[in-house]
C-alpha cells in the first residue's frame, strides 16, 4: 500500500521483507521436494498439520494458494478453466481455482506441486470433501479424510471420541504412506512449537487493542500465511517473534498502522483478496482502520491443551471457528467489538463460502442488538472478481462510515 496516501499514510511493516523471504523459501521447497528428500501432502486449511511436520512431510495448502491466485488476480481465468471442464460457476472459487490450476498448469507459482497424498478435514466446510475427492481421483493419490462433526451448540463426548479415534487412524495412514513409525517425541516438539506460534499470533493480534492499532487486519491477512502453512516449524516461531517485537515497538511509541485512526472496525469472513489494497485505501483515506477480524483470529486459539497430546490436538481441531454454530460466531463478533473498542463491523457475504456467509444477516442484527454498534454487509467473492461491483461496495462503505460518524 502506497505511502502517497498523504492524508493518512500507511506505515510499512519492516518484517514484511523477512515474511517474503520466508514464504519464498517455503514455496521453493514444496515446488522441489525431491531436492530436500521430502514428500508433499495437500492439506485443507483446518487440517491437522502437526503430524505431517513430525513425519517430515511438507504441507501444501490449496486454499492459501487460492488466496495467492486471488490477490494476483489470476483466479477468474483459472475458475473459467475449471468451468470449461463442467464445474459449475457457483462452486467455491478456491476449489475452482485449484482445479483450474491443475488442469492448466498455470498460476502464480506455475504448475502445482504434485502431492504424494491428500489430507482433508471438514472442520471448515463440506466443500473440501468433494474437492479433495476430485483431486484424489485426478492425481491418483490416496486421500485421508478427518471427519469432525459440526457442533451447533454443544460438543458431545461421543463426538470428541470420534475425532480422537480418527486421529489415530490418521497417524496409521501416515505411517503407511511414509513406511516408518510415528516419531512421538518429534511430534510433541512440533505441537509445542505449533502452540507457541498460535500464542505469538494471538499476542500479535491482541496488540491492536491499543489505540492506535499497530497492525491492521489487512496486514494480518498478509502475515497470516506462516500461521497457516508453517505452524509447527521453527521458521514460524522465529518469524512471529520478529514481527511481534516490531509491533511492540510501535505500541511503545504510540505509532499505528495508519497515521490517522478515527474509526475502528472489525471484519468478518475471508478477505476479498483481489481488492484488499483498494478497500484498505478507501477506509484509511476516510480515517477508518480494520483493527481485528474473525478470519485471522481463527488461528489464535484461546486455551490450547498444553499436554501436546493427540487428544488435545483432536479437541483443538474439532472446535475451530468455522466448525461452530451461529450462537458462538455471534458471541465472538460481539466480544471482538468490545475487546478492540470498535465502532462497527464489516461483513463480507462471500458467495464462495457458505459456512462463513450463511447466517450473517441474522448475526448482523444480533451483534448490533448486543453491542449497539452498526454493521454493514458487502457482497463479493474471496478470489473470483467476476461478480464483484467495486463501485457499489465503495458507495455502501462511504455511507456506512457516515452513519458511524453521525453516531459518535
Amino acid at each position: 500500500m502506497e505511502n502517497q496516501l498523504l492524508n493518512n499514510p500507511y506505515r510499512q511493516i519492516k518484517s514484511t521483507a523477512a515474511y517474503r523471504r520466508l514464504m519464498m523459501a517455503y514455496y521453493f521447497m514444496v515446488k522441489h521436494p525431491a531436492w530436500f528428500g521430502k514428500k508433499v501432502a495437500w492439506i485443507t486449511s483446518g487440517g491437522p498439520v502437526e503430524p505431517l511436520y513430525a513425519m517430515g512431510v511438507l504441507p501444501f495448502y490449496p486454499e492459501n494458494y487460492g488466496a495467492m491466485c486471488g490477490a494476483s488476480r489470476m483466479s477468474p481465468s483459472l475458475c473459467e478453466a475449471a468451468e470449461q471442464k463442467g464445474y459449475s460457476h457457483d462452486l467455491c472459487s478456491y476449489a475452482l481455482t485449484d482445479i483450474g490450476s491443475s488442469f492448466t498448469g498455470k498460476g502464480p507459482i506455475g504448475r502445482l506441486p504434485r502431492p504424494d497424498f491428500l489430507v482433508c478435514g471438514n472442520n471448515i466446510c463440506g466443500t473440501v470433501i468433494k474437492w479433495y475427492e476430485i483431486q484424489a481421483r485426478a492425481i491418483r493419490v490416496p486421500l485421508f479424510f478427518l471427519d469432525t462433526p459440526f457442533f451447533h451448540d454443544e460438543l458431545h463426548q461421543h463426538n470428541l471420541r470420534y475425532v480422537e479415534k480418527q486421529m489415530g487412524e490418521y497417524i496409521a495412514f501416515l505411517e503407511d504412506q511414509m513406511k516408518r513409525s510415528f516419531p512421538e517425541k518429534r511430534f510433541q516438539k512440533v505441537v509445542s512449537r505449533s502452540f507457541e506460534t498460535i500464542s505469538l499470533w494471538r499476542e500479535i493480534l491482541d496488540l491492536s487493542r491499543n489505540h492506535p492499532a499497530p497492525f491492521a487486519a489487512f496486514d494480518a491477512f498478509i502475515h497470516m500465511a506462516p500461521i497457516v502453512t508453517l505452524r509447527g516449524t521453527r521458521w514460524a516461531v522465529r518469524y512471529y517473534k520478529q514481527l511481534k517485537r516490531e509491533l511492540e515497538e510501535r505500541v511503545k511509541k504510540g505509532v499505528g498502522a495508519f497515521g490517522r485512526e478515527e474509526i475502528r472496525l472489525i471484519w468478518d469472513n475471508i478477505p476479498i483478496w483481489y481488492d484488499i489494497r483498494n478497500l484498505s485505501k478507501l477506509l484509511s483515506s476516510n480515517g477508518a482502520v480494520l483493527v481485528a477480524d474473525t478470519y485471522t483470529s481463527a488461528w489464535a486459539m484461546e486455551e490450547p491443551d498444553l499436554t501436546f497430546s493427540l487428544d488435545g490436538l483432536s479437541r483443538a481441531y474439532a472446535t475451530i471457528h468455522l466448525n461452530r454454530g451461529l450462537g458462538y460466531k455471534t458471541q465472538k463478533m460481539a466480544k471482538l467489538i468490545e475487546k478492540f473498542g470498535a465502532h462497527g463491523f464489516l461483513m463480507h457475504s462471500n458467495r464462495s463460502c457458505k459456512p462463513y456467509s450463511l447466517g450473517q444477516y441474522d448475526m448482523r442484527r444480533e451483534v448490533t442488538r448486543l453491542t449497539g454498534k452498526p454493521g454493514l454487509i458487502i457482497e463479493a467473492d474471496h478470489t473470483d472478481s467476476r461478480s464483484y461491483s467495486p463501485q457499489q461496495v465503495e458507495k455502501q462503505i462511504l455511507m456506512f462510515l457516515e452513519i458511524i460518524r453521525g453516531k459518535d
Partner: protein
Amino acid sequence: MGNKPSLIREFERVASLEYKDIASQLPGDCIPIGFFCPYVPEEMLHAAGAFPLRLMGTPIRMSHVQAHLPPNCCHLVKSSFESLLRGELDFLKGIVFSHTCDTMQGLSDIWAFQKRLPFQFDFMTPSNLSSERSRPYLKAEIERFKAFLDANVREITPQDLKASIHLFNQIREKTQTLYRLRRKWPGWISGSDFAQIIRAGYLMDRSRYLNLLGQLLETIPEKSEDNGHPIPVFLAGNMTHSPSYFSMMEEAGASVVSDNLCSGARFLRLVTCEDIDPIDALTERYFSSFLCPAKHSGVQAHIETLIKEVEEAGARGVIFLFYKYCEPHYFDYPDLKKALEAKGIPSLLLEVDDPATSQGQLKIRIQAFVEMLNPI
C-alpha cells in the same frame, strides 16, 4: 376406492396439499415433526408417536427469505425457510435437521435463531462413511436422538421401534414393486402420476399410505399395453419435486425407468434389517446401502454406484436434474458425466431453481436429448 383412477386422484390430492392444508387435516392429538433428509431415521419419529413430515420444497414466491439467506442457496432451503417465516409451518411441534451439506448446516442455525418451533434437533450424521470409527459414532448419535425423542415426544419402546421399522420396510417393498412394474409396463402409471405417488408418501399417515399402495398394486394390468416403446432414461439428482419434469420426459418419448433422486429410489436403499437390534439395524443401513453425494465413502463410490444403477435399469441415457447451487451434486457431476461417457451412456444436465419457472427451455433440451438417444 380401489380402482386405479380414484387411487391416483387421492395420491395427487395429498401431493398437491400446501402446508396449511396438511395442518388442517391432521388429527388434534397428532405431533407433526418436520425433517428434510433421509439421513434422519423417520422410523424413530414414527415410533415415538410423531407424524414425520418431509419438507420437500414448494413453489413459493420468495419475499421474506432475502433478509436471512444469501441468494445462492438451493430452492429447497430457500422455499422451506420462506414457508417457516410466513408462519406456514407453525403447526409443526419440532424440526429435525441432519448433517449433510454446508447450506443445510447454515439453514439449521438460522432456523434455530427464529425460535419459531417448540424444538429443534440436529442429527449429526458422520460425513465419512468409510472409517471404521464412523459406525460407533453414528450409533451413539442415534441413541442421543432416541433419548431426545423419549424426553420430548414419547418414550420409544423396542416394540414400537420394531413395528415402525416393519411398516417403513413394507412401504419400501411396495414402492420397489411399483418401480419394477413401471419398468415392465411404462404406460401403466404415467411419470407425473408416479412422482405424485412418491411425494404423497412423505406427507400422509404412513399406514394409510401403505394401504393405498397395496390397493394400487392390485390394479396391475393383465398384459402389457402398447406404449410406443419409450426410450429408457435414468434420472439422477435431488428430488422429485415437480411432476412436470416427468411429463416433459414422457412427452419427448422417454420413460424414467429408475432414478437416484433423494426423494425417489434412494429411499429404497434404506431397507432396514429386522433380525438384529433395531438401533444397530438403523445404523448399519447408512453404511451398507444408502449414500448421498454429501457423504464420503471412498473416492470412487459415487461413480461406481451410479454406473451400476444405470446399467441395472437398462437406461440408454441419464438426465441429471439438479437444484441450482447444490454443491455436492455439482462437484460430482463432471466426473460422473465422464464415467458415463466412457461406458457409451450420454447424459444431459438440467438445472432448476424454482421448479415452477423456466420449463419451456427445459422442454426443448429434453426433446433434443431424447431424440439423440433414439437411433433412426
